């Protein structure tokens, strides 16, 4: 926390939070647009319900307001690292499936992938400012994906994008929470505070 005490570190943190929030907003906006494109190009129904996909982190948190900043950052980082892997796989599958025929979808997927990657960088930087440092990706990576059929892959992709859109919203709120000045924003809540 020592680093967070310095003015430059605080400034840096605020800047990272601010830009992270906006990046999350843009990411959500782009993912929403991508969802429309994806549903259209993949021939899916926009109202199709997708069951929980294995390996896809869930944005919903039961006690979200009780999380510490670091917890938030760690959960976000884990989620986005998972999204990064999932999106990269989707991009590869999309290229294998459609080739260069649907470049727009591929570019949109690549753009979202880049944003996820950028947000991951933001989270890692924030964790560094928390004097914690980002955890290694070795164990945080998603589990190896099972072999799925084409339609299942499409549905999984739809589920990934939808969950990413949810995470974008949550991440923005998390970062706003982190950006708020005040004690304990970065520290873990005491057990007493826990429900």
């Amino acid at each position, binding site marked *: 926390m020592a680093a967070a005490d310095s003015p430059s570190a605080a400034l840096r943190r605020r800047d990272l939070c601010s*830009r*992270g929030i*906006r*990046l999350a*907003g*843009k990411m*959500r*906006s*782009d993912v929403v*647009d991508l969802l429309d494109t994806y549903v259209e190009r993949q021939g899916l129904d926009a109202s199709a319900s997708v069951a929980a996909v294995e390996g896809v982190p869930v944005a919903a948190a039961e006690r979200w307001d009780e999380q510490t900043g670091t917890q938030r950052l760690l959960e976000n980082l884990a989620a986005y690292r998972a999204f990064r892997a999932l999106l990269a796989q989707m991009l590869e599958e999309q290229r294998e499936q459609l080739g260069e025929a649907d470049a727009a979808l591929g*570019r*949109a997927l690549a*753009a979202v992938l*880049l*944003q996820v*990657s*950028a947000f*991951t*960088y*933001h989270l*890692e930087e924030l964790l560094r400012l928390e004097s914690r440092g980002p955890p290694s990706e070795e164990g945080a990576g998603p589990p190896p994906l099972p072999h799925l059929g084409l339609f299942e892959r499409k549905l999984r992709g739809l589920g990934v994008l939808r969950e990413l859109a949810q995470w974008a919203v949550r991440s923005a709120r998390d970062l706003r929470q982190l950006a708020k000045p005040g004690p304990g924003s970065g520290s873990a809540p005491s057990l007493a505070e826990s429900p």
Partner: protein
Amino acid sequence: MFSGWNWVAHGLYLLLNICSLEVSGGLVQSCGHIIPESPVLALGSNFTALCILNESCLDFGNIYANQIIWKIKNRVVPKEQYREINRTVSSVTFNDTSSLATPLTCNILADGQIEQNIYGITVTVGLPPEKPKNLSCIVHQVSKLTYPMTCTWNPGRHTFLDTHFRLKYRWPQENFPDCIPKDVNNSCTITDVQFFVNLEIWVEAANALGKAESDPLVLDPIEIVKPLSPHNLSVNSGILPTVLKISWENRISAAVMKLKFNIRYRIISDTNWMQVPPEDTASPRTSFSVQGLRPYTEYVFSIRCMKEDGVGYWSDWSEEKTGVTTEDKPSKGPPIWRIIDASCSPASWTVHLMWKALEPFEANGVILQYEVTVRAKSSLSSPPEKYNVNTTNLTLKLPNGTYEVTVIAHNRVGASSPSVLLIPASNSKAPVKNVRTLPKDGKLWVGWTAPNSYVLKYVIEWCLVSNSSDCIMEWQNEPGNVQGTYLKGDIKPFKCYLITVYPLYADGQGSGQSVKAYLQQDRPSKGPTVQTKKVGKAEAVLTWNHLTVDEQNGFIRSYTIFYKTVDGNETAVTVDPSKTEYTLSSLTSDTLYTVRMMASTDEGGRSGPDFTFTTQKFGKGEIEAIVVPVCLAFLLIVLLGVLFCFNKRDLIKKHIWPVVPDPSKSNIAQWSPQVPAKHNFSSKEQMYPEGSFTDVSVVEIEADDKKSFSEQDLKPFDLLKKEKSTSEGHSSGIGGSSCMSSPRQSVSDSDEGETTQNTSSTVQYSTVVLNGYRDQTPVQVFSRSESTQPLLDSEERSEDRAGGGDSATQRQQYFKQSGDQDETNADRPCFERAKQIIPANEGDLVGFAQLQISDQSSQLLGLGLEKNTQEAALSDILQANTEEQTVRPETVEGSPLSVDEMPKSYLPQTVRQGGYMPQ
């Protein structure tokens, strides 16, 4: 023999080597090579090349390094740059690679004469890349989701080498593929960038001589975005006539960036944009209401945007969209003015009311009609007259008086405030002063000095003054607090405008003050045509007409007259422009002059046609001064000649008309033989010495005694009388004046105290007819002849020789015979009066004698030729007689003597002593 074949073989081998170098490129082993092989060298650096000969060649051809010749293209490199390292290696060194060229060849002199090429290399000279500078990037939004980033930089100097530039960028945790420029070396576009993460950007330049990198640029691409401008603009008129609401769509997501806006607008007919205050549009929005607009006006709107915090670039201006505000009631009444025509009737005016259509920003809508109200000020009780018209003028016939005219403009929304014009009976108020004009910025400015009283407003009238068209009046209103304005109209250059300024007061108006002005002056379009009105010896009066207004093109400041002789210098005279006549003086007489005239404005002058005239040879009166004296002199000479001839008439007669005695009239009885004995005069002077008339003998003969003489005796006296009459008639015939004057003098003389002797019976006679005897012998030599036969020539000559008296007789006879005219003359009343008067002078014989003399002398005196041959006494009498002649001119007529009363005969006698005796 072997040696000879060896040399031949060596030569063939060498030739094959050379051929193999150029053709096969190494199929056959060459005799040597150069190190380095095709180097790339930095410009300006030094360079050393080595030519290494193969050992095999040494054995065949005795070729050694000291025989090597280096060449650049076909130019031999100086041997100072060579260095023989050993027997097979030669080096060449260049201190500056700029002197290098391709190819650099290593050659050898075979057999000391034949130059053979061993090897050659290509040398490339260039520069290492400079560090790229001024790297800058911008993100152009091309669609809602596409944000390509274009970076530009300064690539630095030309390297002369193939230099590759790469735009590199990366996130801290991730590298991206390089952006490689296409066809250019100073910019590259990254197709898509992600925002909100710092991107490190730099440029790498590399060629064969090195590599250089620019300073890195670290930025978040969101900070360098030039967004797409808002689109789908729409403009809606609101409830208020001064408000328009514009709406638009943004093409960049609010999640990407929040925007601020600039809104500009203009009236569609105007080119200048107005802008909504930026602070009013500094927040994200998609609509805005623009206020403070003019009613019923079409506006054009445009909008642009940029990142809310001002970091980045403004978008381009959006497409333009127009909208019209709603109508409002006219903001003011129309300007009104009038023309009063009082020429129709003395008791009434024809008033032409005229007003100007309101400007669009004043009308605030479509003017439907004008309401004109005319109220007579003198009779406030009478109701005002109202007129509704659609045009902008109204002509009324009004009785003389003062009226108040109001005009109200109506549109769909409402009515304007009334415009009031007072039409006074007379313009009796104070006028403006010092009206002046000034062309400025292509317009004509009119200024004036305001009168002391408060002026409600001013009316400026103006019209174009032209010969070809009437003065069509234009006008404009100006508020009362200004003292100058620009004329609002199509003011043309080179045209004369008559501008009049009227001050309008609350209770009347002042008289107009006028001034003429030009927006721009030019030279006159033609010059005046000059001609002469009068030409004298040394002066000429020139006259011309003024140029017409259309020809002047400006204010005529002066006329300049240029005149010159054929070979003389031109003289210029400047004349006041108000004049149309000028007198050139000091001209040379009898000389051809060419004159032209130039009219000048402020911008220059133009000359009229040349006009020539010739001055006169003589001045006014010179001819008269010459001719009159000449004529007078001629007359004088003629007169003198006449006088001379008159004086010498006897002599002339003698020579021209010699006296031929008439033998039939000869009479010996008239002779007086005593006279020659008694007087022996040789000349007239001797006979009649002047001043000796005192011894004139007077013979008084009683009329009754006449009868006592026989007719025979009296005959000589008749003859003598005739001679005398002839003599007198002759005298009278020549000198008419003596005929007219002498008898009267005689009469007058006889009237004064001589009445006792002035009787019909008393005849006083004297032979004082000097003229008749001057050049002839005296009468005393007359001899009377009874013979009726003509004289023989001998006798006549003898008589001539005997004495001058014959000549007198002859002369008398001659007159008698040849001169019917003389007789006629003698019968004239003049002569008759002389004969009548002669007896009346019997009482004053002396006076009569003097009179006879003075008749001649007076003529001489009258001509100024003082022939003073008379005595002083005679002069006195002459004076007296002259006076009496003038005093009593009617004396003769009062007592004329009838012919019957004339003495019937005379006794011829001489006045000379013993010269003539009665017989």
